[in-house]
């Protein structure tokens, strides 16, 4: 916790002259705004820990503004802001289990499953030879995300995507 906001440590560099004060130069991300800032601390100094924890929740629906999640054990429902959902919006479908980071019971960030299976809603038939030279073509998925897929994959097919890299993994039989 810094100035009342929860932060996560992105990078922590130990800086110390042979004879003198040791510092930790830390890059931290504000979990509310997503902004990354640099802070310097004297080594060994302590900072209040944010009461943040991760929990697995099921994505229910999006009403256009808010994203609704449910705890699959207690059936308790929570609302996440667009800010908190962030990039995950590109990948998640109703019923997907996501990692939700809660701070004081409020969702701070949403992490999609590492792999998702999504339907291709639009892609070029691309049978007439590959002109890009990259051995692939863009495909729009049902969630709106665009990924590069091999030429043989067609509209209406299901594919498996790695959400950490945004890359196509394989064709899939069913979700």
């Amino acid at each position: 916790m810094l100035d009342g906001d929860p932060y996560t440590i992105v990078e922590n560099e130990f800086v110390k002259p042979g004879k003198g004060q040791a510092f930790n130069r830390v890059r931290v991300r504000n979990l509310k705004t997503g902004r990354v800032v640099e802070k310097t601390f004297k080594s060994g100094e302590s900072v209040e820990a944010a009461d943040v924890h991760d929990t697995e929740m099921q994505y229910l629906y999006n009403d256009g503004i808010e994203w609704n999640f449910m705890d699959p054990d207690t059936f308790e429902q929570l609302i996440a802001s667009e800010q908190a959902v962030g990039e995950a919006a590109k990948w998640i479908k109703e019923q997907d289990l996501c990692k939700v980071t809660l701070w004081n019971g409020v969702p701070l960030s949403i992490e999609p499953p590492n792999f998702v299976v999504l339907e291709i809603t639009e892609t070029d038939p691309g049978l007439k030879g590959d002109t890009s030279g990259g051995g692939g073509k863009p495909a729009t998925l049902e969630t709106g995300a665009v990924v590069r897929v091999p030429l043989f994959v067609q509209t209406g097919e299901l594919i498996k995507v790695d959400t950490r890299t945004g890359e196509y993994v394989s064709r899939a039989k069913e979700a």
Partner: protein
Amino acid sequence: MSPAARDTAAAGLPWRPCATREMLEARAAMLARIRAFFAAAGVLEVETPLLSRAAVTDPALTSLAVRPGTGVAGGYLHTSPEFAMKRLLAAGSGPIYQICKVFRDDERGRWHHPEFSLLEWYRPGWDYQRLIDEVAALVRAALDRPALAVERVSYRALFRDGLGIDPWETSVAALRDCARRVGIGGVEGLELDRDGWLDLLLSHRLESGLGRGRLSFVHDYPPSQAALARVRPGAAPVAERFELYVEGVELANGFQELTDAAEQRARFDADLDWRRANGQAEVPTDVHFLAALEAGLPESAGVALGLDRLLMIATGAPDIDAVLAFPVERA
């Protein structure tokens, strides 16, 4: 644990070394060049205890305490062989060097490891400016780069040219303003004394420019940062201390050695007062070292140089783990 369970638990452990075979060879070759350098210069290689009854008082260093075993008293692992080597000098050893492991608790990072290899040497009858020349020659030999350029810059000139402030004259408030002005993050929350602010500015804004394609020696420090260096009196007294930087990294620290026993005792006491006031461990001072100073330490210049960092620079290693067989997490 049963043998079978033990084998299962051991199966996934990262037992392999971090350093590659080539890195082990580079280290061995570097050590051989260093030993050849000192053999040619007529400097005697010595060994002194790693485990001492006494510890360093310097508040910036944390000694690792060793619990008493059976029969032999415990003590502290040394943070440098300085006190013992000066006892050898006082006993008339002549010029000496040592390559040894030293231990500093609470130091871990890309450039720090709590156990590291140090080269330390002493030149009785020399002054520190002459020793700077020899450090340059040694590093050129160790890196096998005989034409590497050398520059000398005083601590005062470094701050004046780099930040536009005089480290002797500038107030603590102005040092804080300077840190804010140069964009060091989180300055509002920092409570530091004068030397703390100077350390912050040096380590965050000045060091990275030093030693680029050359050896940069920073010399003549504020008296408050003398450590074990002699202070040269004058209108603005300076500590006769130097540091070597290569590629933005602090590599060596040297002194015109303090030989005045009463002054040394006073500095130990000041360190211990600081430790008491700031809740740091109180440690037994090295009384044998003080006795040697009272008997008479010849006027000497001495320096300590970090060998793991030197090897990192020689090989372009990205972090200290890459030059170590087994870093502390898997030691």
